[in-house]
């Protein structure tokens, strides 16, 4: 299964887990699985329409991922705030 890696505050919303194995064949499916397993995460990474929030980056291993990016066994999904803001 793919592995999702989280930092605070997302890891706190995911029950203190900084790393979780989750089902899914795309980034979107894996993040939806994360929301099902830890409902407090709902709305923080994906918006209410299932899109990755504008200033959140999801990397699949070392490459930028999108909702429809395919993922497989052992892939690591890093959920990180973008380099933006003020």
């Amino acid at each position: 299964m793919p592995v999702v890696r989280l930092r605070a505050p997302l890891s706190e919303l995911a029950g203190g887990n900084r790393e979780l194995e989750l089902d899914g064949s795309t980034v979107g499916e894996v993040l939806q699985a994360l929301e099902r397993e830890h409902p407090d995460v709902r709305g923080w990474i994906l918006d209410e329409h299932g899109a990755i929030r504008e200033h959140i980056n999801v990397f699949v291993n070392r490459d930028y991922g999108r909702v429809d990016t395919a993922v497989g066994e052992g892939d690591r999904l890093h959920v990180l705030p973008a380099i933006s803001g003020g």
Partner: protein
Amino acid sequence: MTQLLVGTKKGLFVLEGEAGSPFEITSRAFAGEPVEFATRDARSGRWLAAVTSAFYGPKVFYADDPAGEWEQAAGLELPENAEAPLERLWTIVPAEDDDHLYAGGAPGVLFESHDGGSSWELNQAFWEQPTRPEWSPGAGGMCMHSIATWPGDPSRVALAISAVGVWLTEDGGKTWRSGNKNLYPRYMPEEAREDTLTLCVHNMHRAPTQPERLFMQFHGGVYRSDDAGESWTSIADGLPSDFGFPMVLDPADPDSAFVIPLVADMDRTTPEGKVRVYETRDAGASWTPRGDGLPQEGAYLTILRQAFCGEGSGEGMGLYFGATSGDVFGSGDAGKTWFTAATKLPPVHSVRAA
């Protein structure tokens, strides 16, 4: 003792003190996150904060103690047919019936809670307004920032949106109609002013003891309505500028209003480097500057639409406002004299007395 909730670009600050002396920071929550608005529902004692993380989106949180644990409220999201997700939440207002609250946000949306703010649902009738595809946002987004309830009558509410004007309901939000007669949007071409919906209201308040009366700070204009928001009369004569954002009323005096003029839309700073609040006690027929104790030299401040509030009423009414400079000023005598309550905070988005 006065307790202020100061929403800033970098968190919520709770300040405590006595009018006339600097206030103390007693707690900070949501460190690093933009807090657009925070208030305390006097009915329940519950604290509510609208937080719009640049990364994680807009949320409402609630707590019984601002220094304690905050819980995230549920249901603040847009339906599938929305073109974009919820952008921001601008205000939270207790309604007239128990445990009922309103929240206004962008893009021009109204949410309601019937459990004191724990969970929310979209007001569908307002969401489904047939003219919505024609609506335009102001510079800060299509923000619903003003929600004026009618004391003792939960069926009557007035909303104001930048830049979609005033909206009225008389059936508790089942149906809505606009109330924009005689508003003068000089930022529109003359031939388009008559029937435009692009009406940039900056702030609107109802006089609680005479609820058919409302006051409005417009994007270039200060107005009063004496017919519950159906039509408006300019009351800007006597002000140094008719541009500004926030407004406060003395709840005991239906002829009162306080505004903080800024130069103009192209220069959103206090005129001549002087910080002055202007007061009317005759429903806008005349205005009196109130600057004793406020910076009167080299002070080019910007005061945002939610960053001014009142506490109490009458001659001892408290007035408090914060600027994007991070300064917070207060008065304990309805504006006759002022003091500096805090300095060097992050840019101030909102100020409310607890």
